[in-house]
């Protein structure tokens, strides 16, 4: 569905993408993962023809540079910033998108129902909550019922409840067999949605693998912030250090550095030492 070869993008002296190549098969779901500035959003913008680039991008066999309109007709896009027109009523945004895509306006009614937006259709975009904006963004992306979805940090501006709701929607879209390319730096929540993760840094691919292998491949670590019921931090530090973990106290408990895919081992160590955990947070 997507074929990218030697994609390079420079802003003055800064190289944002450096000979980036990627294939995404029809029906496949792929995440571009990496820190801010890794070049994930730029890949999406190149596919959409929003920026100039060197190299080649093909969607469904069409050159994105030469057949930009035909390529974009096949793509539903959810932007990182939901920068819709603030003064427009929600329904008008969908009608406008349908008009630009030459899709019958009757489709808008279907989408309003599908995304439970019907009761909000007359509200101005500025009046919508983050979750509603996200649903609107997805509804807009699905106006043409596209075979390919580009989701750029689709949950970055959402609270926990809206994020959970959005992830359910993405799962449904995936089950429908659409090709999905999404960007994220939250692998924990998006990992379950994709078949493959492409880790990026400095505009290049660092590694490609199934989401479950990413942490091990990259040696990713997280911090566990543990509050013990007994506040016996000395014994906890001894137990953790003897098991090979780096740990230290902080004002409220202890911080333990663990490999991202082996968080349970640190907890088991504390449990075996007879220490009861009252609360736990994972810091990435």
């Amino acid at each position: 569905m997507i074929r990218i070869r030697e994609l390079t993008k420079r802003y003055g002296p800064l190289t944002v993408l450096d000979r980036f190549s990627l294939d995404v098969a029809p029906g496949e779901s792929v995440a571009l993962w990496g820190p801010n500035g890794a070049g994930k959003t730029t890949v999406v913008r190149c596919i959409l023809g929003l920026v100039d680039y060197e190299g080649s991008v093909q969607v469904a066999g069409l050159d994105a540079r030469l057949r930009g309109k035909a390529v974009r007709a096949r793509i539903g896009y959810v932007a990182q910033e939901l920068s819709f027109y603030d003064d427009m009523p929600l329904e008008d945004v969908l009608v406008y998108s349908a008009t630009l895509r030459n899709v019958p306006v009757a489709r808008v009614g279907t989408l309003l129902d599908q995304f439970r937006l019907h009761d909000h259709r007359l509200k101005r975009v500025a009046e919508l909550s983050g979750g509603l904006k996200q649903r609107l963004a997805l509804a807009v992306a699905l106006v043409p019922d596209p075979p390919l979805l580009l989701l750029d940090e689709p949950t970055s501006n959402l609270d926990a409840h809206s994020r959970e709701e959005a992830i359910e929607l993405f799962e449904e879209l995936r089950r429908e067999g659409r090709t999905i390319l999404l960007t994220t730096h939250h692998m924990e929540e998006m990992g379950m949605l994709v078949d493959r993760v492409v880790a990026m840094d400095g505009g290049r691919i660092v590694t490609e693998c199934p989401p479950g292998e990413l942490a091990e491949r990259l040696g990713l670590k997280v911090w566990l912030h543990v509050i013990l019921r007994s506040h016996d931090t000395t014994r906890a530090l001894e137990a953790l250090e003897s098991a090979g973990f780096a740990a230290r106290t902080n004002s409220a408990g202890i911080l333990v550095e663990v490999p991202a895919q082996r968080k349970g081992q640190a907890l088991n160590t504390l449990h075996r030492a007879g220490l009861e955990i009252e609360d736990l947070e994972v810091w990435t």
Partner: protein
Amino acid sequence: MTAGAAPDVWLDLPEKAQRRTILAIARKELDDAVRSRWFWMWTVSFAGLAAVLAMTALPASRIAGAASYGRTAASLVTLTQIIVPLMGLTLGAQTIAFQRENGALRFLLSHPVNRTESFWGLYAGKAAALTAASFAGFGTAGVVTALRSGGGEAGSFVRITLLAWALLLAMVAVGMLISTLAHRAPSALGSAVFTWLALVFLGDLGLMGTAVATRLSVPMLFFSTIVNPVEAFRLAALATFASSFDILGPAGTYAADALGAALVPVIVSSLLAWILVPLAVAWFRFTRHQDL
């Protein structure tokens, strides 16, 4: 729902610009304008000022007859040459720069829309909104004039309205050019205000100063005047109701003598060039040199 289940009518849109898409974008711009405060502010201000000018100028025309229609027309021309460029330049300059900054342009261009369609749609929509605002002003002044002094000078009034429209289209075009050149919306707005000052005030004063300092020849003075769209509008508008160009000094006399009947077409051509050239440059810049 299954992926790609909708009819495939959209799948092979031709790449050339489509009138349907341009009209959809223009209509959206027009709707946005009508929803916005600035549109009503300009419309009411312009219509109010035009009506006040028409009412205050007309008592004399009842005494002196149709000859003093010129007072109303001259007042309206003065108002137009200040307000219309400010309106066209500032709002034209915000079109692309503002939408680029808030991401709306990226949203638009993520659709099967090319940059040519976007550009002409945005220009047409903005020009249509401002046309409505300025016609409301001229319409109000026209109604007041007709009610109080009869419709004897309707032809002249319509010609001034059309010239003001040409000036408006030119100013929106220059504003769009500024919009494509500016990196940020505030700098686009600042450049538009500076351009307005240059065309309306500095152009006039600067030309006079330059003429005195360099002993500019009369033909050069005339041509320097008509390359400024605001001055070109003023000359062409005066030609619709003034019996001679003596009030413009030596340049006016030269213009009438040298060009005769060709004077107005030459001036109108200058205005048309001010519409077409900035638009062509802005379109070229927008379609070829801008990342979003």
